[in-house]
């Protein structure tokens, strides 16, 4: 560290090495000192600056700032980080941050001012770029929002059209189907005694096909209806829903079926119609896919894992080849072919309805050993 003879020499060295312009002036605005920083920023040498008016640094349109600054200095006030414009020796405008403080003599009278000026042209430029970037970003965001709104509107229109489509699907497709089925049945009723078994069979098969197509249309409708909007989620008394389903369906009751509920079932967060749909389809499958002559035995139970609940529907049915389990939940997937009636939409509905409640579904099974389907939903809070 270099030695300094006095503290004023130390101060002079600090002033001399400063990056900022440090200037002093008297109360008439005459420059009394000028450091190398001032020379570098404004371009005047100390010889050119000292003894001149500070006004030479102020652009024409800002000349009125000086008397106001002097006025405040006279009152002993400081001016901190005042951002303004000054000009260099060659007339180039400079954006600066200015701090001005009064200089007092030994008896405390204000005799002049010291000013520290920092060139902030670069910072100002960055600020302007930032502001421009922000504005641009905002306009992009607004544009994007408009695009989203437009597309949402298009989407909503499409959904409305789809709804109208599914409506006419059920109405207009089912009407002729109903007619075909009914006319076939009427023919069979009216000419039953004239027909032998051989000629009745194809008619009965045709009727069966129309019934199958009717089920297909109804299932498709149920599936498309699931595609729209979310559903309200609430706390569900699972056991009440399960018992309600069983009570409503004679084919879910003894002696046709033996269903055991392992009470109590964990309550879940979900939507009653969606859960009813899921469980009805799972129970329907459990009842349907059994070996001929075997009484379906179904066990319903639940287990809580962290914040989730799994509802299990376990059957003694024909089971599923684990390799087929993956495609089981896909639309129109019918791994048992024509042996068992169905449309191949039931489990696709379960999957979609479960997803709408924020849940998942799956199966564990082995051929000949029954299946265990599960439905995982958020646990009731």
């Amino acid at each position, binding site marked *: 560290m270099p030695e300094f003879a006095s503290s004023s020499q130390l101060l002079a060295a600090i002033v001399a090495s400063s990056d900022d312009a440090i200037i002093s002036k008297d109360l008439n605005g005459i420059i009394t000192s000028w450091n190398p920083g001032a020379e570098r920023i404004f371009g005047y040498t100390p010889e050119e600056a000292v003894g001149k008016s500070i006004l030479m640094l102020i652009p024409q349109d800002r000349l009125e700032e000086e008397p106001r600054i002097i006025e405040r200095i006279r009152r002993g006030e400081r001016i901190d980080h005042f951002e303004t414009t000054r000009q260099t020796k060659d007339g180039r405008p400079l954006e600066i941050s200015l701090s001005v403080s009064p200089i007092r003599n030994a008896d405390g009278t204000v005799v002049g001012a010291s000013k520290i000026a920092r060139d902030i042209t670069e910072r100002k430029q960055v600020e302007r770029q930032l502001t421009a970037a922000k504005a641009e970003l905002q306009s992009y965001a607004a544009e994007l929002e408009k695009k989203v709104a437009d597309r949402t509107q298009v989407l909503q229109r499409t959904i409305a059209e789809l709804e109208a489509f599914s*409506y006419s699907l*059920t*109405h207009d497709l*089912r*009407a002729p*189907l*109903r*007619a075909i*089925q*009914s*006319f076939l*049945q*009427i023919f069979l*009723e009216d000419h039953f005694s004239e027909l032998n078994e051989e000629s009745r069979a194809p008619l009965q098969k045709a*009727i069966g096909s*129309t*019934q199958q197509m*009717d089920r297909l249309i*109804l299932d498709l*409708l149920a599936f498309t209806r699931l595609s729209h909007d979310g559903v309200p989620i609430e706390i569900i008394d699972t056991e009440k829903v399960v018992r309600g389903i069983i009570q409503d369906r004679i084919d879910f009751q003894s002696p046709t079926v033996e269903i055991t509920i392992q009470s109590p079932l964990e309550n879940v967060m979900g939507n009653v119609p969606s859960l009813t749909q899921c469980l009805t389809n799972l129970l329907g499958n459990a009842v349907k896919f059994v070996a001929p002559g075997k009484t379906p035995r179904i066990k319903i139970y639940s287990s809580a894992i962290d914040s989730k609940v799994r509802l299990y529907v376990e059957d003694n049915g024909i089971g599923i080849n684990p390799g087929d389990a993956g495609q089981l939940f896909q639309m129109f997937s019918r791994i048992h072919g024509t042996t068992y009636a169905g449309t191949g939409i039931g489990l696709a509905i379960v999957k979609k309805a479960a997803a709408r409640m924020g849940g998942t579904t799956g199966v564990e099974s082995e051929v000949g050993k029954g299946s265990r389907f599960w439905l995982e939903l958020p646990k009731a809070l």
Partner: protein
Amino acid sequence: MKKDRSVLLAEDDENDVSFLKRAFGHAEITNPLHVASDGQVAIDYLSGAGEFSDRNAYPLPGLLLLDLKMPRKTGMDVLRWIRSQANLRSLPVIMLTSSVHPQEIAAAYETGANAFVTKPSGTPERTELARLIKGFWLSFNQLP
């Protein structure tokens, strides 16, 4: 059975009309059955407009079977109109439809339908429906 109660069927599908007539026959319903071929005809019939002013030939029904989707005036249009008429406000109306839209069912009941039935696809089911209509709406049910 209250034999004097006639039934008006508002239905544009001729097949459905003949199927229901057949089901009524199988269910041995002897009440007169009149048919309006669309919603506007149903309103004309019920208001006694034109030829329908002859109440001997076209009596006011004791039961209306009203198809939901019909040209000119829909089943819902007819239902709304009926419930705004002083003399028809209490006429029992059974809505018939091929669709199973929950909103439609709710809307029909809110507008004043007395029952909502999805049209059966097969003749045995249709005959069963006719029997139930006969037993309840044309026998046990009391009208004001």
